[in-house]
Every structure is written in structure tokens, then in C-alpha cells.
């Protein structure tokens, strides 16, 4: 069976610098894979490669078994992407933003549909008809997450999804992601948050200087051990 997401010996340069160096991993259907790493490790770059924005120098990235480079459009249509510090349109309301982006995806939703998604991310109702420029950082992030939900794609690429969220919202978000995975969605998320990653992910990959240097799996119904991952993370960062 082909995996929804696969990186095969992925190496990639950005402006002449080697940013990813032989990264290989797969994410299975319904799996949550968290990519951990320090600043500049290459996490966001990995997501952009899956979206076909950056071309591999060597190796390849595959979405649903097909090389992204060969068919960018179908890769993108299978993926909901939550960018790092997602910026929606400040001069538009949450409804208008969602409406615009969903039309752009060719997948418009009814007002009820929008409300259902905004309920799931707990964006206050009174805010929904307000322009995003009056939102807090977390409210904007919630709106962007709602957009990713509404895409109803088989795959989600989430870049720092919990940044800006308060602890309660983070917990709710983790529950939400688990529910989505149980529903069959494949989730690749990128984060610095070791604890959060261990809470939610089925597997954690550790990325350092563009190389995948560790992998930790949950097993036997147990969560990944935060201590172990944190030790690995810290050790690698110091080294």
C-alpha cells in the first residue's frame, strides 16, 4: 500500500545552501507524524517540498504514491496546508476569508458549514463577522485551522499549528487532530513543542540541520516518552 506522504532521500537547496540532506520518512494513512526541530532545521522547508514549491536537488517527495514534481496540482488538491503564522486577509471577516479561500480551492461551503468548523476551533461567534485585523494572534490561528478543516482533504500539513494558542486551545486542538486522524486523515505537523508533539503524535521525527536524526514511536497504547525525546532534542541542539 502506498503511503499518503513519503520523502525519499530528499535533499534540497535554498539559495545555494543545503537545507535538507537525505531526509526519508513516510506517513501512513490516519497517522499523525510530528517533525520536531530547532529553528532553521528545515521543518517548514519539508512541508513546502510536499506542496511542490521547492524542487528537490536529489531524491523525491511523493503524495499518494505520485511524485509531487510530476503533478503538483493533484498533490496540492489532496493537501490542506496550514502555514507558519498563517496570514489571512485582515480586511475581511472570518466568514469572508473562509469563503474566499474555499472558493479558491473549488470547494465552497455553506454558512452552516463555516460555523461548524469555527465551532470546532472555538472561535467566538461574535468575532466571526469582524475583520481579522481586529483579531488576536490566537483567533487568527483558529480561523486558519478552521480553513484547513473545511478543505476536508485526506492530508494535512500543519506548520506550528499551536503557535499563538492558549493552553486550553492547545489541548482542544490536540483532541481535534486526534479525531481527524481517527477519521482517516493523514497529518504531518511541524513544531518546536516537544511535549505537544509527544502528546498528539503517533510518531515523532527529529530534524537537525536538514537531517532526520531520530525517530520515536508510540507503542502498545502508550504515548511517546517526552523525557526521552526532550533529551534527544536537547542533546542534538547542543552538539
Amino acid at each position, binding site marked *: 500500500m502506498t503511503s499518503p506522504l513519503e520523502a525519499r532521500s530528499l535533499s534540497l537547496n535554498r539559495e545555494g545552501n543545503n537545507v535538507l540532506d537525505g531526509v526519508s520518512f513516510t506517513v501512513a494513512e490516519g497517522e499523525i507524524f510530528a517533525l520536531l526541530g530547532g529553528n532553521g532545521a528545515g521543518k517548514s522547508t519539508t512541508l*513546502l517540498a510536499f*506542496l511542490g*514549491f521547492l524542487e528537490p536537488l536529489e531524491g523525491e517527495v511523493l503524495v499518494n504514491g505520485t511524485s509531487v514534481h510530476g503533478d*503538483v*496540482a493533484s498533490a*496540492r*488538491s489532496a*493537501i490542506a*496546508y496550514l*502555514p507558519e*503564522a*498563517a*496570514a*489571512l*486577509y485582515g*480586511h*475581511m471577516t472570518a466568514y*469572508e476569508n473562509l469563503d*474566499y*479561500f474555499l*472558493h*479558491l*480551492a*473549488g470547494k465552497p461551503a455553506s454558512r452552516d458549514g463555516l460555523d461548524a468548523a469555527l465551532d470546532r476551533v472555538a472561535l467566538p461567534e461574535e468575532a466571526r463577522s469582524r475583520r481579522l485585523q481586529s483579531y488576536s494572534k490566537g483567533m487568527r490561528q483558529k480561523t486558519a485551522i478552521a480553513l484547513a478543516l473545511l*478543505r476536508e482533504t485526506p492530508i494535512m500539513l500543519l506548520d506550528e499549528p499551536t503557535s499563538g494558542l492558549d493552553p486550553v486551545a492547545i489541548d482542544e486542538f490536540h483532541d481535534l487532530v486526534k479525531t481527524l486522524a481517527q477519521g482517516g486523515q493523514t497529518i504531518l505537523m511541524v513544531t518546536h513543542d516537544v511535549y505537544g508533539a509527544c502528546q498528539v503524535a503517533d510518531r515523532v521525527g527529529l530534524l537537525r540541520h536538514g537531517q532526520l536524526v531520530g525517530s520515536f514511536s508510540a507503542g502498545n497504547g502508550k504515548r511517546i516518552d517526552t523525557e526521552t525525546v526532550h533529551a534527544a532534542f536537547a542533546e542534538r541542539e547542543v552538539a
Partner: protein
Amino acid sequence: MMLGNLTREIRFLARDRGALFWLALALILSVVAVSFGVAEVRDQRDTIATLVEEDAADRANALEGQEEWGSAAYYAFHLTYAPPSEFAFAAMGQRDSSPWKHRVRMLALEGQIHEADTKNADFGLVGRFDFAFLAASVAPLLLILLLYDLRASERTARRHDLLVATAGASWQLWFPRAFVRMIMLTLLLLLPLWIGALMEGTALSAIGQASFVLVGALLIWWLIVELVSRINASPSILLTSLIGLWLALAIVVPALSKAAIEANNPVPDGGEILLLQRETVNDAWDLPKEATMTPFVEEYPEWREYATIEGPWAWKWYYAFQQVGDQTVAPLVGQYRQARLSRDRQAGLLALLSPTSFVERAFEKLAGTDAAAMIAYEDAVRDFHAELRAFHYPMLIKEEPFDPNVLQRLPAYVPSATGD
């Protein structure tokens, strides 16, 4: 799918205040340009109507009590004019720099034609603010302002990747977004033009061609903006580059072309013609009569037997040296005419280098306000003057007895239909 893309981007545009501002400005400028044009054209028509009314009365007045063919011809002025076409409101063109009305009489003609040259209106480098100027020079700038940072602003706002990833293919986003702006700009510019055309009764073919030319030019500018804005640079760098290109294509290239063409085709000054003719005519008074009559009969062999002037004065001698005045400047006039025509031809070729010049020329051609139309008007004045001579010469030269009734049949100037 395409329709969905368009309605999405129309709604998006409706919330983009910056874009709405430029679009509103386009509409306002177009309304202003068209109103100015229509007002100017109506003003010119009123002027002509008044002059036409006065013309017959003035002439009747001047002819009243005349007892000689010579003095009747001397005092009778005839109005000639080129009425503005039904599309002239959109492009005043050479009407601003070449005279379109004269009062001519039987005296040496070229001086009368070129006298008006010396009091030309001068609108400087940019010219009059008419629709042609708006369409040729300002519209591209508005298009640049509407399109230059479509991509770059989204990059700066860190929205680019999300937008493109959501759209799937990049063109699904940028093409409709730019297309909607382009269409709105075109429509807002053209709407007042179409209303002006309705008011003026412009031929459908003229307005159709003008609209086509504007759309074509804007498409070229769109292509330019599109190519430049693919560069991964900041919005301000893109804007600077595009304004630079606009300056080059809309201002510098036309100005340089004009300078090069003018240097390449020296045109004798209209004033020179005037001066030479005056000198010729004035000198004739002091020359032996044969010096005038010989060249005259060379032109008109049919009057050879009447060409001997006895006595110190004769009207036919007077009109002969007027005629010779025209003959003397004829080479200069021919040069002037040819040079203007070849300037115009070369300008037509060089206009292919600049969409701005191309649009301006196309509009002037459609409006009958290009150099060719103005030269055609001058030629019509010459033809009319020749008719006047043909009418008067038999009586003048054969010195027939004066009969005021004959003057009822004086030729009348009929303007040719313009704009074609």
C-alpha cells in the same frame, strides 16, 4: 470553473480599497477627458456655425457697392474650415497645433494658409488632456498600479504559498485576479467614451476600432506587468521598475522618436513661406510688369493674349503677382508638405516601438485629427482657392464689364466629410 474564478475575484476586488481607488480614478479621468473633448468639439462647431453665419453677411457687405471685379475680389473673404469629426472629441490631435479654419481671399494663398501657423496653441510635451492621451499614457500607469504587486503584496503578507497551495495551480489565482482588474479598468475607461460617442453620433466602426485599440494596448501593458512582476522582488522594486518602463515606453521613446524624426526631416517654417511670399509680392510692385506676367502665363497659357499690361496699374497685373507669389513659394510649400507627410510616415513606423504612440496615432486617425487629415484640409483650401481663381480670372483678365449679379455665383466652400 472560469466563471467561478471570476465571481470570486470580483467579490475580492470589491473589498480591495486600493484597487477601487485606482478604478474610481480611471472612471473620473475618463469622464473628465470625454467631457472636455465633447465641450471642445461643440465649442469648435459653435465657432464654425457663428463664422458661417457671419461669412455670407460679411461678404455681401464687402461686395456692396463694388464697381470693379478686382476690388470685389479684394474685399471678399471666404470662410474655409474643417469641422471636427464625430470622434474628434476623443482625440483632438493635430487640431490643437494646425489651424482648422481660415478666411481666405483672392490674394496670394500660401501666406494666408501659413499665417495661422504662427499663432499655434502649444501644449508642450504631454499635449491636451483628451481621451487619446488618457488611453495612451495614463491608462497604462493605472494598469501598472492595479497589477504590479498582486503577487508581491501576497508574498510580503506571507500569504503567497497558502494562496497558491489552495488554488492548486498558480494561474487559477493570478490570472482571474489580474483579468478582473484589467476588465474593470477597461470598462470604466470605455464607458464614458461610449456615452460620448452616443452623444456625438460616432460611427459604430470608429468607436469599435478605438475600443479594440485600447484593449489591445492594455493587453500589451498587462503582458509587460505580468513578466516583470514574476520577478521575486519587493513591491517597491517592482513598482519602480514598471514606472521606469512606463516612462521609457510612454514618454521617452515617443519624445526621442519625435526629436529624431524632426531632425531627420527638416520642415521649412510656415513663417518662412509667409515671408518669402510677402517679399515676392511686395517686390513685384517695383519690377517691370513682364517679370510678373511672363511666369503667370507660363502657368496659364490660355491668358497669353491678354498678358500685356498697358498703363501703370491693372487689377489683372495685381492678381497675377499674387499668383506668382504662390508660384514662387510652391517649391517651399511642396517641401513643407512632403516633409510633414514623411515625418508622419516615419512616426507611424516608430509608433510600433511604443504602445502609447501607437494608441495616440490610431485615435487621431479615427478622429480625423492626424497630420494627413490636416494636410487634406489645407489641400481643400487650395482647391477652393483655385476655384475662386478660376471663377474670377476670366472677368479680371479679359477685363469684362462689371456685373454684380455674376458674383451671386461665387464658389462656396464646402467642407469635406471628416473622419474618414
